[in-house]
């Protein structure tokens, strides 16, 4: 395998899952296709592997599990293991040459975005889906903090859930190589999801966009019916259903927090007409690139001019209403197709 510690997203593609994990591969595929993803780079899986071997962390973890023995384990055992192994991993420093490369990429990214020390998001990017999702750190500023968060991301593969899951599946417990995505933080004005076909009726002539003010996450404990926009792909006409949005999720420190939406904005659509048309344009690009209807996630930045403020952060093939069929529908379909058929 090529010894490369960092990749620009544009260098990766959908086949790069084992190079830098799923998230990075997907972002890379989108960036390559000319879609506006927040810019960034990936730390390779190989870098993780070198880190754990070279620092002796891997050996210490193997010893730890050997001492633990094969006996039956409960969640307390895994929680203790998780705590202690994370401590082992976090006590190690990234090899100096990797640190150097990371610093170079970080600086280049900052320059690209016209900042000196660009606030970035650091996210784990595993090659396979794991339960007990690994951590995400927002608003990471400066090389030193960045190095610390990368190590924390690596250490996060040893959550008690992840250890227990790997032990149950007979996967090696001492390591679970992952990539890391370093990406410009988008201070979201609004965010949400979109479907390039109507997700319930399966109508190919419609695109459906849903969104909320802020980071777009559902506000815990509050009524969070999103605004819904049905866009006709032919005529570009939009049908809006706007909901009251009293709360929003905003960036706060290294994470997020909940704030009140100013009263005058609560009943205003979270997307302007231009932004909607831009999303329609991007939706069509996605369909063309991936060759089928897509289920996407979007963000509109607070602090950038239109149209550079509209970003895509995720896309996957849409599960249409037909595919999303509940068990009940499947059984009814079978009854109609198999029993009451003559």
């Amino acid at each position, binding site marked *: 395998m090529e010894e490369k510690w960092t990749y620009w997203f544009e260098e990766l593609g959908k086949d790069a899952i084992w190079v830098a994990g799923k998230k990075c591969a997907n972002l890379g595929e989108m960036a390559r296709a000319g879609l506006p993803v927040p810019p960034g780079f990936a730390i390779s899986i190989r870098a993780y592997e070198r880190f754990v071997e070279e620092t002796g962390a891997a050996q210490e973890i193997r010893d730890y599990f050997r001492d633990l023995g094969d006996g039956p384990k409960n969640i307390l055992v895994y929680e203790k293991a998780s705590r202690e192994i994370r401590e082992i991993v976090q006590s190690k420093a990234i090899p100096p040459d990797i640190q150097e490369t990371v610093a170079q990429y970080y600086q280049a990214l900052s320059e690209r975005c016209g900042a000196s020390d660009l606030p970035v998001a650091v996210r784990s990017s595993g090659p396979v889906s794991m339960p007990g999702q690994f951590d995400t750190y927002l608003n990471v500023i400066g090389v030193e903090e960045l190095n610390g968060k990368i190590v924390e991301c690596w250490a996060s593969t040893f959550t008690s859930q992840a250890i227990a899951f790997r032990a149950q599946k007979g996967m090696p417990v001492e390591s679970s190589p992952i990539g890391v995505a370093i990406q410009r933080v988008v201070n979201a004005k609004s965010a949400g999801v979109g479907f390039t076909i109507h997700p319930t009726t399966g109508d190919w002539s419609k695109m459906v966009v849903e969104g909320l003010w802020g980071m777009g996450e559902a506000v815990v404990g509050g009524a969070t019916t999103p605004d819904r926009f049905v866009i006709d792909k032919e005529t570009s006409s939009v049908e809006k259903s706007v909901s009251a949005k009293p709360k929003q999720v905003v960036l706060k420190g290294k994470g997020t927090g909940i704030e009140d939406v100013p009263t005058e904005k609560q009943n205003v659509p979270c997307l302007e007409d231009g932004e909607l048309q831009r999303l329609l344009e991007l939706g069509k690009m996605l369909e063309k690139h991936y060759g089928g209807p897509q289920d996407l996630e979007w963000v509109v930045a607070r602090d950038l001019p239109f149209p550079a403020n509209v970003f895509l952060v995720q896309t996957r093939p849409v599960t249409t209403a037909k595919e999303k069929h509940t*068990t009940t529908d499947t059984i*009814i379909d079978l*009854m*109609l197709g*198999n029993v*009451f058929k003559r």
Partner: protein
Amino acid sequence: MYDITPFELDEQRDLEHYDVWLLDGTHSIPPMTPLSGWAWVQYCRSGMQYGAEMLSLPTCKGWDWRLHDHCIYLTPLVVTSEEEVKQREQVFRQRIAPIIEDYDKVWQGYVKEMLAMYDHAKSLDLEKASNIELMEHFEELMHINKRVWDIHMFMMYAVDGVFILFENICKTLLGIDDTNPTFHKLVRGFDNEIFQADRKLWQLSKRAIELGIADVFQSSKPNEVLPKLEGSEAGRKWSKELYAFIDQFGWRTARIFEYAEPSWVEDPSPAIMNVKQYLAKGGDFNLDDERKVLAEEREAAEKDVLSRVSEEQKGWFTALLRLAQRSSAFSEEHNLYIDLYATAVIRRGLLAIGNRLAAAGTIGHRDDIFFLIPDEIRRVCIDPANHDLRPLVARRRENWAGSLKREHPPLIGKIGFEEAVGLLVRSVDPIALKIVVGSLPVPRPELKADLYGTCGSPGIAEGRARVVYVYEDLINVQEGEILVAPATYVSWTPIFSLIKGVVVDRGASLSHAAIVGREYGIPVVMNVFTGTSAIKNGQTIRVDGNLGTVHILG
């Protein structure tokens, strides 16, 4: 004989409109008393049309019914226009969804409703009730009759439809059909209400041994047992326990919707007969162990089939399997909550009216009430002494007694049996296919069998034949015999723990004989049509559930 119902078969006119009328041999052989036949053709028929309509069954609107010589004849109301089928399909989607999503919630809701109706009806003091109150009670009973049939058929159409789907899916997805033991293992071994009654009876037999009174049962006829038990303290103790059982499980008659049959509440002899039979089986027989084996076999079979279903199909297949298991249990449970319970509660009221009419001389005897129809009861109930219905009863009684001896053709129509079955297939009526009519046996001369039928429950057994027409004959059944009957009924269930196999003239995979045979793990051959006439008591026969054959060995 238009004086019983407007549903008497008019062989000329009814055959102009319909091609064929099929005998419901499962339910109306032997022929029903006039009042029972009247109620059956009124409410079971309207319930069927209600169920098909409420569920918006795509291909069938229920059946039309006729009475002919005290037997029931049926013809399916097939939806002929494909456009209408399409429209009905759309409504069907919405109507069946709640049952598929949460069967228990729907069914338990209905059970609650019905038990409340029965409780209300039972709360009337019949001795003290005035004639007017009895009249009102009669109308209440007829309302119960209508409502329980509506529920019965709505649920049954849904549940049987699911079961057919499960059978088909097992065939196409797993390559196992209903002659494969795995299929039967998958849907049996659940602890349903009917089985709980059997267990209580079995426990009562153990109790009789404990109390040292088992010999009373062995040396006496069922109706002599209770008086003899009155002589000892242990005996009185046992009787008390029996009555506690009867209170809970005794609202049942020997035959569903035949009001002329006594219920266990009036006469617990059938329960005592079952206890006798459990005692005859000997001390080491353990019903619970047998059930446990079935439950374990089911779990193993589930594991086996689920390992053969792909990941994508596992979700809906598992849900379908659970529903099919519920379907099998429903087939037994609905009998308890609807067929048996309603019959017993209605009979209770009818007997009170019968007593009142007999006392006034309107009829000669209490049981003559079963030879009247509702409008006649309404006519005389408030002032019975001014009416004499004895000649009418005598005429009907004579006619009915004659019908017991007469032959009843399996179909009346312009077309033959095979074409008639084709019509049923076109109706895709789940109840017709799964309970009443079943599939047509295919004679296979190479097997050199004496009778050809279909598989109700797999397995092979050889033994002495015992031909039983009516419930009272069950007392003659000896352990290890093979039961031969026109059909079996839910009150016959306990006998299945004694016998080695079953042959029934009529039935399909969700009729009583199949379900209970499956639960007891004995072979059942169904739809042989002429079993009760071809097989003689005491002959040795071999039944092969897998092949659906019966050999008479001599």
